[in-house]
């Protein structure tokens, strides 16, 4: 961790605030380099560079409007949906520049997303989870049944919904809906799952369940989570990036960010002086 301070590490010369763990010889799952993003004339991200490790939970924290959600959405190119978004820099996932290959569909099957509010479709629970695989052309009933069961088990909600798979998903509670959303993302067998404040609309008990779930999921998935809740970041993440005004101020092991941040602004934020 002192490599950043000394500035001798070659990662730092590349302009990275990341790569704190010296022992990580293995290549990062997601590697972001000098990412700038503009909404029309307004710049929302400034030279963001960070490496996200495989099968870890990486939390993005920072005050509202700091660009953390915008950054998250560049990872599966959801920003493409907004008119006038311009991007420069590189994002590589598994060594592939995702903005150079034009196959957004393939990218999004590999990088799943869970949104702030549960957004299940007005269909049955089964059809919601089977939606993605079906759109990929899987029609075999047995196979779909298997995917749906595995996904719902993976999202720790199978026991609660197994007897009502054919009923409307919108009849579930908010917390249950969010876990079905996670199941829906898992059903695509993604490598990376992005979560955009997934518990901000949930009550404390549902939040706890989702947090437990995330902790369990990291053995299979690389998870990037945006959160407003600093305790949450501290509880569930391995690494934390602190965003402020579109810049990454500090990116480090979560324990370091919360116990001995190097930047004054990080310290002010995590101790609740602003934000």
């Amino acid at each position, binding site marked *: 961790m002192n490599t950043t301070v000394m500035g001798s590490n070659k990662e730092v010369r590349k302009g990275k605030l990341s790569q704190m763990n010296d022992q990580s010889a293995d290549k990062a799952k997601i590697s972001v380099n000098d990412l700038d993003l503009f909404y029309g004339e307004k710049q929302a991200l400034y030279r963001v560079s960070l490496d996200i490790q495989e099968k870890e939970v990486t939390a993005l924290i920072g005050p509202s409007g700091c660009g953390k959600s915008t950054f998250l959405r560049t990872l599966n190119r959801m920003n493409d949906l907004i008119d006038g978004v311009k991007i420069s820099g590189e994002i590589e996932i598994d060594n592939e520049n995702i903005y150079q290959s034009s196959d957004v569909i393939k990218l999004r*099957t590999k990088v799943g997303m869970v949104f702030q*509010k549960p957004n299940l479709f007005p269909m049955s629970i089964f059809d919601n989870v089977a939606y993605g695989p079906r759109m990929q052309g899987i029609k075999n009933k047995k196979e779909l049944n298997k995917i749906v069961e595995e996904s719902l088990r993976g999202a720790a909600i199978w026991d609660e919904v197994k007897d009502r798979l054919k009923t409307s998903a919108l009849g579930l509670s908010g917390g249950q809906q969010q876990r079905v959303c996670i199941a829906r993302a898992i059903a695509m067998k993604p490598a990376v799952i992005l979560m955009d404040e997934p518990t901000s609309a949930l009550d404390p008990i549902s939040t706890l369940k989702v947090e437990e779930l995330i902790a369990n999921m990291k053995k299979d998935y690389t998870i990037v989570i945006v959160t407003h809740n600093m305790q949450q970041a501290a509880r569930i993440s391995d690494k934390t990036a602190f965003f402020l005004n579109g810049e990454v101020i500090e990116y480090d092991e979560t324990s370091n960010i919360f116990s001995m941040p190097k930047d004054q602004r990080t310290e002010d934020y995590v101790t609740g002086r602003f934000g």
Partner: protein
Amino acid sequence: MLRGLLWFSAFLTVAVLVIIVGYIFYKGFRLINFDFIFGDYSPVGHGGIWPMIVTTIYTIVISLLIATPIGILSAVYLQEYAKQGRLVRMIRFATESLTGIPSIIYGLFGAVFFVTTLKLGMSIIAASLTLTIIVLPVIIRTTEEALKTVPPAYREGSLALGTTKLQTLYKVILPSAMPGILSGIILSMGRIVGESAAIFLTAGTVAAMPDSIFSSARTLTVHSYLVTQESGDIELAAAVGIVLIVIILVLNLSATFISKKLNKADY
């Protein structure tokens, strides 16, 4: 005081409806019998109105068959695909203006363009094409509104699962917008059944069973108008009115029924 005023307004609205429908039923119901509805038309006596019922159904079906797909596709294009800018604003303004134009103007256009220029003659098809133009803006507007009410979260949720725009449209957006789209179609049916001036000018007034959609024929509303105009037979006109009301009621109920069925089929 205000409460009383509100109550009175509501009462007045319902009362007017009840009085009109009641008056028409009172005047006309004595003529309603099997022969009147299913009999062929004859100029003597009150005549059957089966040819007019058939003509009315023809115009509804043909106009909707043409207007519905075009209207829905246009709305989808405007709402989901077109780059929102000047051109789209102009198209929206044009469709909105089209809904406000009196139908006689459409009738004149139909008489000049479909009947004369395209040489379709006074015919059911010429009337149906004219009616298509009349209801097209209605279908486009209501479909656009229905698409707007689909939560953006559905779109995002679907696209984030690696689906194409077309899959998202077909599997998520259109099904959620379906009730709104159907209500637009119901509105259009009402517009078609209620239209008289434009049909008068394009389908003509031949009071006989049409041989094909290229025949000139008379719809129920035109019949009702002509009967009142020529013979002053209010009872007959009212009887035709009853049939019209029943047809609209049946169409509305079946459309609502279908829309409920479709919604249930979603899960």
